[in-house]
């Protein structure tokens, strides 16, 4: 396996109202190997989202270093990191442009990290591909290619976000509780679809989840975060031995 992304001694502190330093990521070391599917667990305020924001570049770290394939990317902007990071957010509203249609959104995603020139966008040429792609999800998205995404249901929007993020096969996929805002049935379907895509496209992925079953069922590695630190980092073998009860006990002890 090859190292894809390495976090070295990454710390993020913020100042709260009373000028006290609050450490939300505390000297985190994490090496993500190519092909890893890591499930990330942890209570509220454990630092999971901050970890994601630090990786995607939407938050700059206080100290430490991030290396992508050996290259120092600590000071790369979020826009620049979009070349290798794709992200699906928890809120269905976050992942799509509401006034633009489904196919316009897909077209935007197709150009992830590429130049966007002053040239016609070539929507028609891609329509067939987009239709096929949307049909593969199986929730009727293909009938809504011309619908502004703001009119779609949460489940449809979220599966569109997933399609958009994986369209260009990013080197690293970040899933930030992306099924949490959906009803149980839709949530389960989206999770199955997600897993299927990760396997088919052989993606490297980090997934934050609050569902213990999902954390156990999916992925080949599990990390547990607590107070801005990685408390536990289990490889595939250790993870397979883990039971739901073990996980509950770990959480109890927090």
């Amino acid at each position, binding site marked *: 396996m090859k190292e894809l992304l390495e976090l070295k001694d990454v710390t993020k502190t913020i100042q709260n109202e009373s000028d006290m330093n609050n450490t939300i990521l505390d000297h985190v070391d994490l090496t993500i190997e190519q092909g890893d599917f890591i499930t990330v667990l942890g209570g509220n305020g454990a630092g999971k989202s901050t970890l994601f924001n630090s990786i995607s570049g939407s938050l700059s770290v206080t100290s430490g270093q991030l290396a992508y394939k050996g290259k120092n990317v600590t000071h790369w902007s979020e*826009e620049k990191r979009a070349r290798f990071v794709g992200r699906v957010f928890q809120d269905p509203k976050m992942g799509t442009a509401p006034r633009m249609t489904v196919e316009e959104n897909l077209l*935007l995603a197709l150009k992830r990290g590429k130049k*966007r020139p002053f040239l016609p966008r070539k929507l028609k040429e891609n329509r067939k591909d987009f239709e096929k792609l949307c049909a593969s999800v199986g929730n009727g998205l293909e009938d809504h290619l011309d619908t502004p995404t703001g009119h779609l249901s949460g489940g449809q929007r979220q599966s569109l976000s997933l399609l958009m993020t994986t369209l260009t096969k990013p080197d690293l996929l970040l899933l930030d509780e992306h099924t949490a805002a959906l009803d149980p049935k839709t949530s389960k379907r989206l999770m199955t679809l997600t897993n299927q895509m990760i396997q088919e496209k052989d993606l490297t992925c980090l997934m934050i989840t609050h569902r213990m079953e999902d954390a156990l069922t999916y992925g080949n590695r599990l990390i547990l975060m607590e107070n801005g630190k990685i408390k536990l980092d289990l490889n595939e073998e250790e993870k397979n031995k883990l039971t739901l009860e073990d996980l509950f006990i770990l959480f109890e002890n927090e």
Partner: protein
Amino acid sequence: MFISAIAQGFLWTILGIGIFTTYRILKFPDLTVEGSFPLGAAVAVTAIVSGIPPFPATLLAILAGMGAGLVTGLLYTKGKIPVILSGILVMSGLHSVILFVMQRPNLSLLNYPKLYDVFTGLPNYFDVIVVGIIALVIVISVLLFFFYTSKGQAYIATGDNESMARSLGIKTDNMKILGLVFANGITALSGALIAQDNGYADVNGGIGIIVIGLASIIIAEVLFKEVTLGERLITIIIGSVLYQLLLLAVIQLGFDTTYIRIFSSTILALFLMTPQLRKGLNLSKISKEEGQH
């Protein structure tokens, strides 16, 4: 009077479209326009007075407006000054720039050539309408071409969902700068055309013009809902002409033109409140029907 109001409506539409590209697409109000509008007027009039033909003079005005937009854009994105404040700073600074350009508070175009002279054969005001339509066709075509390029789609996405746009690698700061440059270039064009129609440029010519631009957008949106982007730009023409006719009606009713601005604001306020007013009226209607049963 009537034809004149329609002709003015066409020229003000250009301003409305300029404001639309920031206010409705990027979803922030840009106050720079109150400075770039008289700047466009000042640059065009000064250029013509110093012997430059009206057409290149008008192009110079557009460039000046784009420069003003660029400054606001840089203050906002690189200087991290809130966009309203950035606009106010540039608008205020432009007052001095305009005085420097004209070397006096106002400058007349009396006995100088104007862009409208090309169509002197036409009856009164129709020269203005023809030039206005040509300018609108150019502005709308360029904008529509732009909106449907890859760059333009990234621009729309920036206004629609900025965090998504960034996560897809769109340089949202550059998009905002681009929008402000476009919007103020278009605004300056509007200023240059209106100054040539009025026959003068005035350093205070920009006060309250944002209300006129917004009014044409809001009227268009109240009258025509759920239209495509291209149709929306065209409906702003209707909104703008209607607004000028409404103002004309107010004047015809005998109100003092000295106090015209209060009517401008009132008309806009009424249109902005229409969703609320409509809701209020419907409610009273329903309760009345219920009362009868």
